[in-house]
């Protein structure tokens, strides 16, 4: 198992030709964890990755490896890292020649190289592929070779720039799970660039959402992915914008949040009365019913009345959005349930959720 190191960047500024500037005052990846840099195309995430991976020198800023400042000229630091990009970029020749490339740069003895190559290929599910020409590989196999080529170096930091983006969705999901398992076993520090929320959720401990060169949200995956910091982040993550409110009562681990004229929700959180907060409820924790139905677990403290404003297909289910006061809350509903309830846009509905389902943060 590799011993990961902490990786950080501070005061990074780098102008882009497109006009905006990568501007990251500070970002940190604790040792042995995976940080997903999530954002739309052109948001600067790949450039930030290149800066963190010592592949590009920013106009300004510092990169810290285990607290020590390092640069693109620091070969020792660079040898502690490895990267896998969106396309595998395999070198012409055999699979073995590709996987052992970094080892030969590190002057590892030939016999050891062969052993490590074989082990790395086995780990990515390509045992017996060593002698194959890279020209004969499928897209998924090629990407696995690219991962093996990086893993064989036992890097302390692994940089992954949309490593699954060029693959079909099925293969991409399967490889995401495989990659995440392998990386957790290795204990390596990982920066994973992606524009796919599900991929980020599947692989990352922490998530940093980027927009126009800036990190607009950064924190544990469970927080960032369930409580968007602002309207843009919510829209990007395919969520409803966060609700805004003021804590009116607090006690016994619960707060009452006033959000609009006659709406109050109860959340499991600890904030002083008067604190302005944002909140959100994950769609999978929201139960929706017709206005007159008796539903929901008895322990659900929040039973609000709202109006259905949107019904959108989301794969096998439907996403129904109800407006409660000024706040939009979404729920995932099966096709059968939607038909049974007969809910239509503009109709009244009950929105039910537990206090523990509400994610709250100070504004």
């Amino acid at each position, binding site marked *: 198992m590799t011993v990961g190191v902490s990786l950080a960047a501070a005061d990074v500024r780098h102008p882009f030709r497109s006009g905006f500037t990568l501007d990251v005052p500070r970002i940190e990846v604790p040792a042995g964890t995976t940080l997903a840099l999530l954002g739309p195309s052109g948001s600067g995430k790949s450039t930030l990755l290149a800066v963190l991976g010592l592949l590009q020198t920013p106009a300004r800023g510092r990169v810290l490896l285990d607290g020590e400042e390092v640069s693109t000229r620091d070969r020792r630091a660079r040898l502690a890292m*490895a990267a896998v990009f969106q396309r595998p*970029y395999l070198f012409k*020749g055999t699979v073995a020649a590709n996987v052992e490339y970094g080892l030969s*740069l590190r002057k590892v003895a030939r016999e050891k190289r062969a052993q490590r190559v074989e082990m790395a290929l086995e780990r990515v599910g390509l045992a017996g592929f060593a002698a194959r020409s890279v020209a004969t590989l499928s897209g998924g196999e090629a990407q696995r070779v690219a991962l093996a080529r990086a893993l064989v170096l036992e890097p302390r930091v692994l940089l992954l720039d949309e490593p699954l983006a060029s693959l079909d969705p099925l293969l991409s999901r399967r490889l995401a799970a495989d990659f995440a398992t392998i990386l957790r076993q290795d204990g390596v520090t990982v920066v994973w660039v992606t524009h796919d929320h599900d991929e980020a959720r599947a692989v990352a401990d922490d998530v940093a959402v980027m927009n126009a060169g800036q990190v607009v949200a950064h924190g544990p995956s469970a927080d960032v992915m369930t409580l968007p910091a602002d309207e843009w982040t919510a829209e990007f993550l395919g969520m409803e914008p966060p609700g805004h409110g003021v804590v009116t009562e607090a006690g016994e681990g619960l707060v009452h949040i006033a959000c609009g004229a006659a709406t109050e929700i109860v959340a499991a959180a600890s904030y002083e009365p008067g604190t302005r907060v944002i909140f959100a409820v994950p769609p999978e924790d929201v139960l929706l019913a017709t206005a007159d139905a008796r539903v929901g677990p008895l322990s659900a403290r929040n039973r609000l009345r709202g109006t259905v404003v949107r019904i959108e297909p989301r794969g096998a289910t439907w996403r129904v959005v109800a407006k409660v006061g000024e706040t939009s809350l979404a729920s995932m509903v099966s096709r059968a349930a939607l038909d049974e309830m007969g809910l239509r846009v503009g109709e009244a509905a009950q929105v039910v959720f537990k206090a523990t389902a509400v994610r709250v943060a100070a504004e």
Partner: protein
Amino acid sequence: MRIYADAVIEGWRLLASGALDVWTIVLASLRVSGAATSIALLFGVPLGYWLGTRRSVARHVALVFANTGMGLPPVAVGLVVAMTLSRRGPLGDLGLLYSQTAMVIAQLIIATPVIVAVTAAAVSAVPRELRLQARSLGASPFHEMLLTVREARMGLVAAVAAGFGAIISEVGAVQMVGGNLAGETRVMTTAIVQFTRMGRYGHALALAAILVGIVLAVNVLLTAVQTSAERHEAGLR
């Protein structure tokens, strides 16, 4: 048509009997052009790599020069080299005029731009990300160059073929700086010119056949290398 038949018969007789000292001339040609191509590769490949991988105004200007250099008239090169090495020229003291060294210098000037331009084209076709990938695995700038050149090796074979082809068949420059001295600076092209002037078509034709044969053999060899590399890359054996 008789002129051709006579020349062919005479040429064949000369080659078969060994009366014509062909091999001295052939060896001189191969030595001069081989040396010029090798040195041109030594300079041309790194320069071509630099031109093919950089994105700057200087790169564009240098590329224009290299492309223009590909069309340099050999006689112009011969003239400048001859003037430079002549007794009154800046390098006249070296006494190199009418030597194989002077011929290598002239051919080097002709071959280098060809190799630079072809290498630059081949290298620029290698994705920039491949170098970035190598860098991310710990490659130094030198390793990056080695890898890129290896990836562009098909183009490099073309560069060798183009460079060698441009000078082995060239006559103007070598004539001017070499002087066609028998046993020293007489190469196939200058000998062919001389025999033709003297009306000894059989001699000229025999040498021309060998020259074509050498060019053909070099290209067959390089094509075999290319094909074998292609098959290897495609995973065929």
